[in-house]
């Protein structure tokens, strides 16, 4: 009798634990609905890859540190503690939630080291509600890691 009750309690507890884990893992997809986490690499791995080639088709994970505050039409993700990557979305066909900063994103697309024009950098600051002084201070293009046309994003 005791064994049966113990077995029952263990079974029930396992079910509850699994349920909690799954709820924590709920994610949302943007763009390509067939995107999966298979083959995802880290920011460090991406940077190492781009030392050997000009561009690479990747699925990379990183924490979002900024999102366009007008529409959610671009975001920056951390590649490591001192490097970040600009992500824009294929055909302007999907955006990120305005409050997505701090979430982890898995982004699929062609990554490269890109030159961001002064016009783009100023526009980006406008989208981030920066001051006119900060916008006027941009006078030089910037070199940055970039996925210009991400095909899909999983947000966790």
């Amino acid at each position, binding site marked *: 009798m005791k064994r049966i009750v113990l077995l*029952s309690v263990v079974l029930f507890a396992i079910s509850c634990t699994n349920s909690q884990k*799954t709820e924590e893992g709920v994610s949302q997809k943007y763009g390509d609905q067939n995107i999966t986490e298979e083959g995802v690499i880290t920011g460090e791995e991406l940077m190492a890859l781009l030392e050997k080639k000009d561009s690479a088709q990747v699925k990379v994970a990183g924490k979002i540190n900024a999102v366009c505050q007008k529409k959610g039409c671009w975001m920056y993700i951390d590649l490591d503690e001192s490097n970040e990557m600009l992500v824009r979305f294929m055909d302007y066909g999907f955006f990120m939630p305005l409050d997505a900063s701090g979430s982890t994103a898995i982004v699929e697309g062609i990554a490269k080291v890109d030159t961001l024009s002064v016009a783009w950098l100023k526009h980006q600051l406008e989208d981030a509600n920066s001051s006119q002084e900060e916008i006027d201070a941009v006078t030089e293009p910037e070199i940055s890691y970039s996925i210009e046309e991400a095909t899909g994003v999983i947000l966790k």
Partner: protein
Amino acid sequence: MKLSLKILGGCIIASSFLACHNKAEEESCEVINFPNKDSELALLMRELSEDTENVKSQIQKGKTPVFFTEFESLHTAIPTDTDVRGDGKYTAFADVFIKSVENLLLTEDDKVDAYNFMVKKCVDCHKQICPGPIKRIRKLHIK
């Protein structure tokens, strides 16, 4: 039935239910493309983009182009950035664009040239005001 068997049975049923519930949760990875509130102008631009895709296809097939977008709404739709009309640039670009659409519909010359000119007017405006969709707009060109 013994009480212990009843407890075991109950727990098995409850466990099965939770296991199924887990599976449903795992599969509930929802696809959302525009999670934020869109402005009237953003929605109008999306509609215009789809309309232009159709017009591109009509022209490529030698058919008469037909637009469904209400172009005058370009002057009245509420933009994402509320001060976009402040310096008059947007209004001027919108007027030039609407004229390029009228020209496309009325011209008896090459429709491809008139269409590409209209697409160029979209790009000219977006270069100045909202560069995000330029890459997408350039794909509308007929080569």
